[in-house]
C-alpha cells in the first residue's frame, strides 16, 4: 500500500496516454479531476492486488459516452457515490475498492478522482493493460466475469442499474440511456471479488504507467529522448523511425478508422511503414513484413520528446518513433485473440507475438 499524490498523477497521465496506443481519450480532464480531488481530500491510497481480501467487492469505474460531451459538461464528482450505493444495495455488500477498467487514456485517471471523494482505495490493476473501444474487450470477460450488474449515473442524481443477459445487451441499453442522461455518464461495471481480480486482472499496470511518465519527465529535464527507458520498462521494441507522409482517415460506424504512412529516417531510410488504426493503433507493417499486431501494443512517440502521439495527432511531417510492446499473456489465448485480435477489427492478418516478428526481421536482414 502506498499513497498517490499530485506528482504521481502527473506521471500516470503521461503513461496512460502512451498505453492508450493512440486512442482512449485525452487523459487531461481525468488528470485535473484527480488533482482537484487530492487537493480537497488528500492523497489517495493505492493497493497492490495481493492486499485485497479474496471475498472483498471491487468495482471498476470510468466514463461512458462521448468524450466531446465530457470535456464540456465535466462530472460533478458525486455521480459515483450514487452508482456505488445502488450496486451495494443490489449486491448486499459494501464496495471495498475501485480500479480502472482500462489503463489507457482518460479512464485510467477517473477512478482516482472517484476514490478520493468516496474515501476508497484504488487497486493497481486493470482489465486491458492498454485501451480498447468495447465493453467486452477486458480480461475479466475472457474468464467469464459478467459486465453486469452495472450502474450508470449522471450529475443530476439519476442512476440506472442494468442486469442483462449478456454484454452486447449491456452495451446497447447503456448507450441509449447515456444519451438521455446527457451524453456522458459515470459507470460502475464488472463488479467482482478479490479472487476474480487476482486471477483475471492485469497487475501493476498503474505502477508501470507511473514509471513511464517519470522516465519521460526526467528525460525532458535532461534534454534527452526517453525511448530506450520506455522500451526497457515495457519489454518493447523499436519498430521504425520515420516521418508521417500521409494520413488517410474515414469515420465509419463511430470509429476513427484509417491508415498512416511513414517514410523511414536514419536506420530506416528508404523504407515505408504502414500504420492501421481504429481509435487505437492496431497494425504496423512495412511492404515486406508485419511488425506488430493487436492485441500487442503499438505506440507512436514524438522523436524529440518521447511523448505519445494520438491517432488524431498524426499529421504530415510529424517525426516519430513507432514502438511495439507485448500485451499481457491473457490476450494471447485463442479467446483473447478472437476478442480483440486483427480478425475482430476486420483485418486479414494473423496474430503473431511482436517479439517473434522482430526476431524474424533481424534474421532476414542478418
Amino acid at each position, binding site marked *: 500500500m502506498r499513497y498517490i499524490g499530485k506528482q504521481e498523477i502527473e506521471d500516470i497521465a503521461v503513461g496512460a496516454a502512451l498505453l492508450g496506443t493512440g486512442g482512449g481519450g485525452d487523459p487531461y*480532464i481525468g488528470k485535473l479531476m484527480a488533482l482537484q480531488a487530492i487537493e480537497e481530500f488528500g492523497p489517495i491510497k493505492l493497493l497492490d492486488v495481493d492486499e485485497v481480501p479474496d471475498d472483498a467487492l471491487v468495482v471498476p469505474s470510468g466514463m461512458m459516452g462521448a468524450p*466531446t*460531451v465530457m470535456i464540456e*459538461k465535466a462530472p*460533478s*464528482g458525486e455521480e459515483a457515490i450514487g452508482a456505488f450505493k445502488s450496486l451495494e444495495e443490489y449486491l448486499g455488500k459494501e464496495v471495498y475498492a475501485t480500479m480502472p477498467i482500462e489503463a489507457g487514456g482518460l479512464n485510467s485517471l477517473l477512478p482516482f478522482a472517484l476514490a478520493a471523494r468516496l474515501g476508497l482505495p484504488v487497486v493497481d490493476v486493470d482489465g486491458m493493460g492498454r485501451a480498447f473501444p468495447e465493453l467486452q474487450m477486458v480480461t475479466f470477460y475472457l474468464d467469464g466475469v459478467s459486465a453486469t450488474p452495472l450502474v450508470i449515473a449522471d450529475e443530476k*442524481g439519476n442512476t440506472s442499474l442494468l442486469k442483462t443477459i449478456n454484454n452486447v445487451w449491456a452495451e446497447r441499453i447503456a448507450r441509449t440511456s447515456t444519451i438521455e442522461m*446527457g451524453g456522458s455518464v459515470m459507470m460502475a461495471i464488472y463488479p467482482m471479488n478479490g479472487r476474480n481480480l487476482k486471477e483475471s486482472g492485469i497487475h501493476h499496470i498503474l505502477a508501470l504507467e507511473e514509471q513511464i511518465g517519470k522516465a519521460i519527465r526526467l528525460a525532458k529535464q535532461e534534454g534527452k529522448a526517453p525511448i530506450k527507458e520506455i522500451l526497457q520498462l515495457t519489454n518493447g521494441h523499436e519498430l521504425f523511425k520515420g516521418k508521417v507522409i500521409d494520413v488517410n482517415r474515414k469515420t465509419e460506424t*463511430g470509429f476513427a478508422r484509417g491508415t498512416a504512412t511513414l517514410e523511414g529516417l536514419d536506420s530506416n531510410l528508404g523504407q515505408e511503414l504502414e500504420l492501421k488504426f481504429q481509435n487505437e493503433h492496431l497494425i504496423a507493417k512495412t511492404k515486406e513484413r508485419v511488425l506488430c499486431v493487436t492485441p500487442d501494443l503499438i505506440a507512436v512517440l514524438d522523436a524529440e520528446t518521447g511523448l505519445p502521439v494520438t491517432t488524431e495527432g498524426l499529421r*504530415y511531417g510529424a517525426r516519430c518513433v513507432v514502438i511495439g510492446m507485448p500485451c499481457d499473456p491473457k490476450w494471447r489465448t485463442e479467446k483473447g485473440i478472437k476478442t480483440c485480435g486483427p480478425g475482430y477489427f476486420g483485418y486479414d492478418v494473423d496474430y503473431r507475438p511482436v517479439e517473434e516478428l522482430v526476431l524474424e526481421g533481424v534474421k532476414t536482414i542478418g
Partner: protein
Amino acid sequence: MANYRIGIDVGGTHTDAVILDANYQVVTETKSPTTEDVSTGIYQAMRKVISHVNIPLEDIRYAMLGTTHCTNAIVERKRLNSVAVIRIGAPATLAVKPLIGVPDDLKDHLGKFVYLVRGGNEFDGREITSLDEDEIYKIAHEVKGLVDSVAITSVFSPVSPKHEERAAEIIKEVLGEEIAVSLSSEIGSVGLLERENATILNAAVVNVAKATADGFVNALNEEGIHAKVFFGQNDGTLMSIDYAVKYPIFTVACGPTNSLRGASYLTGYSDALVIDVGGTTTDIGILVNSFPRESSLSVEIGGARTNFRMPDLVSIGLGGGTIVRIQDNGEIKIGPDSVGYQLPEKGMVFGGDTLTTTDVIVALGKAEIGDPTLVKDLDKELLKKIYAQMVEQVEVAIDKIKTSAEPMPVILVGGGSILLPDQLEGASTVLRPENFGVANAIGAAIAQVSGQIEKVFSLDEMGREKTLQLAKDMAFEEAVKAGADPDQLNIVDIEDVPLAYLPGNATRIRIKAAGNLAEVLDGAGV
C-alpha cells in the same frame, strides 16, 4: 479625395510602421525599437512614419494597430482587472473547478472571486437545470465595488447561450451598465475549461485594452490626426475600438497573422507558406484563401490552456541576432538565444564580439551589413557548415507545418529573412516581395473586418441547407457589427464537423465572413 492609412505592428524587437495610400500602395515604411512599455514605442513609430511623408495629416483616415499589450499583460501578470468568475453548470462540472490547471501566480490574480451556480445546458440544448437567478443576484451584490470585470461561462453555451445572457442582464442590473461582462459563448467553442480560461483572460485585460486604445487615439490627436482606429486580431482581420475593448483576447498573436496577411497582399498569393524571420525567432505559417490556417490544438496563453482560434504556427529560435556557438566537441549550436535589438552593438560586423547568424551571412558574402572586413578571417568551411545547418532548421520546420509532400510557394518576410537562400527544400518557388521587412505593418494596414460564429446546430431541425444559411447570416451580422461594409461581404471560411456519438445530427459549424471597411464619412472621428 485623398485618403491614407497608417499600419503599426509591434514585434519582439522592432515596432514597424507604414503609410499606405488609397490604393493600398506603400508611401513610406519605418522601423523603431520596441520599448518595454510597448506604448512609447508605438507613439515613436507613429511620429517617425508621419515625419517621413509630406501629406496633409487630416487625410490619414484610418490607423490600424497590431499590438502585444494584452499578451504582455497576461504573461507578466500586470495591470490585470479584478475579475469575478462565474460558472453556470452545477451540479455538473464541480469535479473540475474554474482555473484548475492554471499556473498558481495567475490564479492568485484571477481566482479571488469564483462562483459556481446551478444551471447550464445539455449537448442538445435541454437545460441541465434552470438557472439559479437568486444566486446570481447574491453574487452581484457581493462583488459590487470589488471587481471591475465579470467572466461568465455556462455549460454548452455554444449550443444555447441563454443562461449566460440572463446572468449578464442581472449583473448589469446590479452593478450598472458600465461593468465589463465577458460571455464565453462569444469567445470560444466547445471545451468548458479552455473556453472558460479564454473568457477569464479576456475579462482580465479589458482595462489594458481600453488604456491602449485611449492612449493611441490621444497620441494621434496630438499630432492632428483624427483617424478611425482599429485593432488587429489574431485571425487577420480588424476590430473597431468598441469591439476590441469587449474582446481584447482576440488581439493575442495578431503579429504573426499580420505578417501572413501582409505577405499574401504583397505577392498576390492566396495559398502559400510564409516564413517571417525577425530578430529572435522565425515563425512559419500557412495561408489558405489569403487567411492564416488556424490551429486545431489547444493553445496556452501565459500558461493557461485555451481553445479559441489561433493561427497555426511553427516557431524556431532563429533570427538575425541569433547567437552561434561552436562547442568543445566541434558541434555547432545555433541559438535559441539572440542578442535581439542589441545586434548593432554585439554583432561582429558591428565591432562586437558575439558571433551571430547575421555575421555568418555577411562573412559568406550573402549580405552586406556593417563592416565585412571584421569577419573576413573566419573559417569559411566552418561558416558554410553553420549556414547549411541554419537552412536545414528552417527546412525541417517547413516540412512540419505542411500538410502534404507537394512543394508549395514560399514567401519570405521580416527583417531577418535575408538569412535565407532563394531555394528551399519543399518550396516550389521562393518569393521576396518588395517591402518584405515591414510585411506585418502592411498586413495590419490592409486588413479587412470580419465576423465569425461557431456553434453546435442540430441539422434535423431545419435541414443542412437552411442551417448553413442561418449560420452565414449570423456571421454576416457579426462582420457588420465589427465595422464591415454590408454590401461587400464574403464568406472566407466554412467548417462543419459532425459530432460523434450524438443524435439529432448535431454538427459544429464555424463560419467566418469578412469584408472591406465601411466608408468613413468625412470628418468622422472616433
